[in-house]
């Protein structure tokens, strides 16, 4: 920190102390008396001057301005101790104010985590987007928007003012504690947020949504589903259950039901594979079949959202 910045901070703290000594006066009169005091004090300090006693200074200023100085005992020992304590508090507040830009960025990141957590995207392998599943790019874009808002609010008191600002600050501080305490743990290449000592794997219920598994090898897809608490089954293009069949681990998932981001009530996910590698049936068992003439590369095949409905499976393997 440079000497000039030190002088500005000290002048601001001093001016606050002087204004506090004038608290018995109308606010407008205090503003008239102390307007420009910071600049004068910065110039004085730059000139080699030292900070005078705020109480004496305030009283001199008032007397010279023709204002009667109230006799409230603030010049006694106890009053000076109180004034010293208040000045120390002012100094601390002004010192912390220098960290404001870091706080603006940090609270935007906390809000990013809270949003990801509320939407329920799940864990990411990147700490930055810990609650945004695999959507790191989206998380970055949202983060930039949040930082933009946060900086504007911080610099211009935009939208959020007064008590609302204090309330938001408290909420963000509490959220920060939650996000930091619920630190990410590393599991099989995945970061999953959770409360330490309780569980690091989220428990899925009817409100849960399965992860995107299309294009994933069956072995990896099954591992993910088991870890996240889903029951699953693997079927071929005709709906024949192949869950316990050998040698299906390397086949990629062509379709899944419920689809990615759909509610998985019943918590059973059906994965469809094509062991023959031939024509692809574009609908799930129980639906009208649509014949295609080419083989679609598994990794890029997707199912229209309208074509996915609940699958009634015959065999289920619970995790």
């Amino acid at each position, binding site marked *: 920190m440079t000497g000039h910045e030190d002088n*500005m901070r000290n002048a601001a703290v001093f001016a606050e102390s002087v204004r506090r000594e004038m608290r018995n006066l109308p606010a407008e009169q205090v503003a008239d008396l102390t307007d420009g*005091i*910071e*600049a004068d004090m*910065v110039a004085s300090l730059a000139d080699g001057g030292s900070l*005078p006693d705020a109480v004496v200074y305030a009283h001199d200023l008032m*007397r*010279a301005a*023709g204002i009667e100085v109230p006799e409230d005992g603030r010049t006694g020992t106890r009053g000076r101790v109180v004034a010293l304590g208040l000045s120390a508090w002012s100094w601390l507040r002004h010192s912390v104010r220098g960290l404001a830009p870091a706080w603006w960025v940090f609270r935007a990141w906390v809000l990013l985590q809270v949003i990801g957590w509320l939407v329920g995207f799940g864990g990411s392998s990147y700490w930055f987007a810990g609650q945004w599943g695999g959507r790191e790019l989206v998380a970055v874009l949202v983060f930039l928007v949040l930082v933009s808002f946060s900086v504007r609010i911080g610099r211009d008191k935009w939208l959020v003012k007064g008590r609302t600002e204090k309330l938001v600050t408290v909420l963000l501080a509490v959220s920060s504690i939650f996000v930091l305490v619920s630190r990410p743990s590393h599991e099989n290449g995945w970061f999953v947020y959770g409360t330490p000592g309780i569980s690091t794997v989220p428990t899925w219920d009817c409100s849960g949504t399965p992860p995107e598994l299309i294009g994933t090898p069956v072995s990896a897809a099954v591992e993910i589903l088991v870890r996240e608490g889903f029951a699953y089954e693997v079927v071929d293009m005709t709906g024949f259950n192949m869950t316990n069949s050998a040698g299906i681990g390397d086949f990629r998932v062509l379709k899944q039901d419920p689809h990615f981001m759909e509610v998985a009530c019943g918590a059973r996910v059906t994965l469809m594979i094509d062991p023959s590698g031939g024509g692809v049936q574009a609908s799930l068992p129980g639906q009208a079949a649509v014949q295609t003439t080419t083989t679609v590369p598994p990794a890029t095949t997707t199912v229209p959202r309208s074509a996915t409905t609940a699958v009634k499976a015959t065999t289920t393997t619970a995790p």
Partner: protein
Amino acid sequence: MAMTDKALDQTQLLKGVLDMAVLAVLSTEDGYGYDVVRRLRTAGLSEIAEASVYGTLRRLFADGALTSYVVPSEEGPHRKYYGLTDAGRTQLGTLASSWGAFSNVITSLIQATTHKGD
């Protein structure tokens, strides 16, 4: 001890003439609070209290003797500049006349006392 007494004397003397000193400084050029203090100190009023000057500036402004304007600063807080109004120039003229007469009386008294001592 002698320096303290001298400072006290100057402080006591300034009480009656601070308005005039501030108006005199601003009659040559506008200035902000600490600038006025600095010019007064350079002129020889080394023991002048900053707060007294700033309070005097506020009071003279409230009385209409001074005008005020704010000059923003990119390096720090804004500065509040003061300049004389016509009423301030008139007031300075009146005070200067009174001071001239008063100081002549005091000077004559001192000189008479000094000659008597010789």
